[in-house]
């Protein structure tokens, strides 16, 4: 039954960097429409796992299935067209381009993939760019070079670029890092509205954010999945507490 088929499945997914096993035999599933958080100590393999999913890093072993199709061998840019968008952990907007042009690159990609080799409709482009900036609340900064924005606004711009790709799966890698408490609160509201249309995979250290947003949590440690479940069961899990607090 299609409705029960997960959006994303990994089977025995592994990645080695020389002698280091960054991700080891991970079997992982993300259901359609959920907000899934991945937590774990530094070096647990969270970013490597999502990098394997979005194709920035090739897998050493194992398979990745997205929407029922094996995407393990596809290059990153093809995966984006299939609906996997990644927002970078270290903000990497195009600093010398305006916010408008940053988002326009993403919008142009979706517009051109719909009508191959056709002319780009400039009005549609501008309208979609402004819509994406509007959603994250920085439409008034459209003409400002991205490098001149505050850190919090740059993070929002990253999200706007991800949104403009119309993703089915939006991967947010530590999106609230470096944001103020007020910014975090409005960011959580934003993520909830995005979740109405897209599935979200969230790597996050801020437990308050994780507990208030996630439908399900995957805990990683030493490249493997330590525990998985709803927020209440994860916060009660003894193994998880030990991994985080030591002991």
């Amino acid at each position, binding site marked *: 039954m299609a409705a029960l088929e997960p959006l994303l499945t990994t089977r025995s997914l592994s990645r080695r960097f020389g002698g280091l096993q960054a991700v080891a035999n991970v079997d992982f599933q993300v259901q359609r429409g959920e907000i899934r958080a991945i937590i774990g100590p530094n070096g647990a393999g969270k970013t490597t796992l999502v990098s394997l999913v979005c194709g920035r890093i090739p897998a050493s072993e194992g398979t990745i299935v997205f929407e029922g199709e094996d995407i393990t061998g596809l290059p990153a*840019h*093809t995966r984006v067209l299939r609906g996997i968008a990644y927002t970078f952990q270290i903000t990497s907007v*195009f600093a010398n381009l305006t916010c408008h042009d940053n988002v326009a690159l993403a919008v142009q990609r*979706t517009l051109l993939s719909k009508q191959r080799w056709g002319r780009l409709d*400039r009005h549609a482009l501008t309208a979609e760019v402004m819509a994406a900036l509007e959603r994250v609340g920085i439409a008034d900064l459209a003409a400002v070079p991205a490098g001149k924005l505050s850190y919090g606004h740059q993070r929002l711009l990253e999200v706007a670029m991800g949104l403009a790709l119309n993703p089915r799966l939006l991967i947010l890698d530590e999106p609230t890092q470096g944001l103020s408490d007020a910014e975090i609160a409005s960011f959580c509201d934003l993520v909830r509205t995005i979740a109405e249309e897209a599935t979200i995979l969230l790597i996050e250290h801020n437990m308050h954010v994780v507990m208030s947003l996630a439908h399900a949590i995957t805990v990683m440690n030493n490249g493997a999945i330590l525990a998985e479940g709803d927020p209440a069961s994860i916060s009660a899990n003894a193994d998880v507490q030990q991994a985080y607090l030591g002991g």
Partner: protein
Amino acid sequence: MTPADTTKRVLMLHAGVIAALFLAQFVLPEYHHGVLARVMVLAAYATGYTLLFGYTGLLSLGHAMFFAAGLYGAGLTVYHLGWSPPAGFGAGIAAGLVLSVMVGFVALRTTGVAFMIVTMMLAQAVYLASLYFGEWTRGDEGIVLTQAMRTFEIAGATIDLSLPDERFNAALILYACSLLICLAVVRAPLGRVMVAIRENEDRTRMLGYDTFQAKLMALALSGTLSAAAGASYALLFGYAGSTFASIHYSIYPLLWVLLGGAATTLGPLIGTLAITYMIDVTSGFTSAYLLLVGVMLVLLVLWSPNGLLGALRDRKLAWLP
């Protein structure tokens, strides 16, 4: 300023520059008339170069091979096979396109310093080939295209490319076409992707772009425009020699573009014009003229690293393409 206003201004500026170049032939004295024709051909070369270097951020140290591909593609077919100048021009462009795609598949596997070295080595191979096949190219001495070889008929009119007026206007057509192609590309979706690759290639890939394909297209466009300039050079000035395949002709477009402004459409023309006249004036009173030109370039790069037009765009005219 709305996008429509910007477009109008940009088009008017470029049309104005082309019109000014056209009118210049009626007022310039004979000597400068000839210099400007040469500058326009070399500026077309620099315009091709800046598509790759300025906009895509790929520093090639081997563009002389594309210029030479056009130069010899036109020169050899006209000289040995008796092709007409338009057919020779077509052969030069085709040679540039084929060479740039082949070079792209090899050189674009590398980035940064390795890309510079690979392009320089490949260009050196082309230079040595032009010496090795001296039987046809006559190496450093070069081949000279006679007036008869450079004359052709089109629509009943006889055009002799060795005459100053014909030469000037042919050079102007070449430059105008290169400039407008460059403008169209940088304002098109491809141009936006080229700039994005220059700024952050990894991010561009994660926005769903096949960056290798985009870089290959940029290199092919850049190489083909450079070859068109090379082919025109052979036909308009009647000479094709190995000097034009040497490392100097890979460095010149870099200097012209740096001086004029790397990621600007009109910078290549300004840079080529300025350096040509700098050399012309300084060589009049000292044999160490290259030293003077070098010092001026160093000062300029220190004072305005984005070149003349780049500085203008940063300070006043943000709408410049």
